[in-house]
């Protein structure tokens, strides 16, 4: 009996040792930080650094194309910060370790289901612990999805100035002022600007909460309108009204939507 369990354990252990190294990506805007982390990770054969990214845009592209299992992610970066990157690739990344100079994001990071949170300069011992955690989790459990990021109260308190949309490897940063209206479509939203339309995996009600309520009005169950683009309102009958936008596009207004508009105007 005991010999049997021993052999099983031994097989399991040897299996782990021979396992493919975990493919990881380092995302940091500072050249020294990338290099130092790469050097430090060279001492951990259980990890394989498959790429270095200088910013969030590169990271989204690399994640989309190379499908790493683990991300070493800096928080403060230009254009897209670490949390923005996660928002855009939430379903594609199994494990994340945040690496940042400040501890003010720690709570937010763990709410985003980060495996660990390392402070710069990175202490090699702490790095080893974090790597251990990842190794222990890989294969042992279903990778934690980064769902709770969406419900993060810290991020929802601030009004958005821009909306991030990913189209394959490409990221679009839309200023909210350029958004004419947002349309709900099943699990997606279609964000219409004067030039084009972007599809994003998100819910209208969630977006509405993060947009300025003085600028965006829910005129219909499926439509959130930027009132700066509202030209006039036409009523077809008592209960049916239509919003005419500045570029002549027409959107339906529901009864409660009309109430919302009246309150705002």
């Amino acid at each position, binding site marked *: 009996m005991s010999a049997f369990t021993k052999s099983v354990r031994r097989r399991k252990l040897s299996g782990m040792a021979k396992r493919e190294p975990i493919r990881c990506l380092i995302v940091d805007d*500072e050249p020294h*930080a990338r290099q*130092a982390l790469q050097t430090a990770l060279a001492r951990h054969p259980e990890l394989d650094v498959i790429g270095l990214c200088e910013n969030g845009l590169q990271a989204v592209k690399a994640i989309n194309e190379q499908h790493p299992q683990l991300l070493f992610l800096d928080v403060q970066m*230009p254009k897209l910060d670490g949390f923005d990157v996660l928002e855009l690739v939430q379903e594609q990344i199994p494990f994340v370790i945040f690496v940042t100079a400040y501890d003010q994001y720690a709570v937010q990071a763990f709410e985003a289901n980060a495996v660990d949170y390392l402070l710069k300069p990175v202490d090699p011992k702490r790095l080893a612990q974090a790597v251990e955690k990842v190794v222990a989790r890989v294969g042992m459990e279903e990778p934690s999805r980064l769902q709770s990021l969406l419900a993060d109260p810290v991020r929802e308190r*601030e009004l958005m100035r821009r909306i991030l949309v990913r189209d394959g490897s490409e990221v679009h940063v839309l200023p909210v002022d350029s958004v004419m209206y947002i349309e709900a479509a099943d699990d997606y939203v279609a964000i219409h600007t004067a030039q084009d339309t972007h599809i994003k995996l998100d819910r209208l009600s969630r977006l509405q909460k993060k947009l300025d309520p003085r600028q965006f009005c829910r005129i219909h169950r499926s439509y959130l309108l930027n009132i700066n683009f509202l030209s006039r309102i036409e009523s077809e009958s008592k209960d049916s009204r239509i919003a005419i936008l500045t570029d002549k596009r027409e959107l339906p207004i529901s009864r409660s939507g009309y109430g919302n508009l009246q309150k705002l105007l």
Partner: protein
Amino acid sequence: MYPLFRTPNRLIAMLVGWSLLSAGLSVLVSGITDVPTGRGLILFAPTYFVWLFFLIPNYYMCRTLPLDKRAWTMVIATQTWILLALALIWALLGRGYALVLDSLADSVPYLEYFSEGLFSNLIFFAGQFEFFVLLHYLLIALQRGRDLEKQTLQQELLTSKAELRAIRATIHPHFLFNALNVLANITDSEPAQARNFCLRLADFLRYSVAYGDRPTATLGAELEHVQNYLSIERERFGERLCTDIEAEEELLETPVPSLMLFPLVENAIKHGIDSCIEGGCLKMRAVAGDGGLHIEISNPVDELGHKRQGTGIGLISLRQRLKNRYGDEATLQTCREDNLFIARICLPLRRASAAVN
């Protein structure tokens, strides 16, 4: 100093006014007591005039007997005793004066006149005394209000000065974290560069500390300071940051407010270069023209590059410092031109050389 005599104008007005009052009162009392008006003037007017100086010390008495701290019965009792004592002294002096006049002019009974007018005079004096007591307490209350206001203002000035100094000398802790982080990363790989980095960081900190208390530096020293700062940031930004700084040689010794350039350059990095994914070039030009020193700092900015906008405290405090020092002669303007953010400082050159503190 007695408040009613504080300025020469007030002193003259007071003395002239009191002389007229004395003369008027003399005529009045002469009328009441059937003393010939001319004689009454000679006898009474000088004694009335002297009475003014009996009233003045009351001001100091009022100061030592503040109404809000002493019982009012005690105040009234004390003031009454003083009035009686002063009246007695005055009466004795007046009598002496009348005696002198009597001996000078044999035919006129000045002493008799004086005795006849004594009662009415004492009544008048008591009235005047009460009036002055009230007047003095009023003056004291006004003065105290003004002192309090002055103190508050002074306190506010001190606080705002301290705040300005604090903001001026502020080194953001994040900056130090970043610097330490760079240092930790390069000590192994590039020891020589790490050593150099330490030296520049030390120079940067030394300047920030030393000029936190000194209001004036030369333009050359200011430029060196921001160059140190930029060389530290360049380690962090790598190729994302390039700088292009030029200043006319003869301007380097020009005195300028210390730590004037740093907040602008720090802003340019934090809110400008760092918001652009590709980074960019920070340009600075210092030239002389129109009797002024013109400094222009420009940097690319990506408005959607950061989630948050800056607080603007750096610019506000710098603007305030320039205003305190140069009034309307110095300006700090900022503007956007396409993708560039531009800050322009203009200082008066001649005033700058006077090095106002």
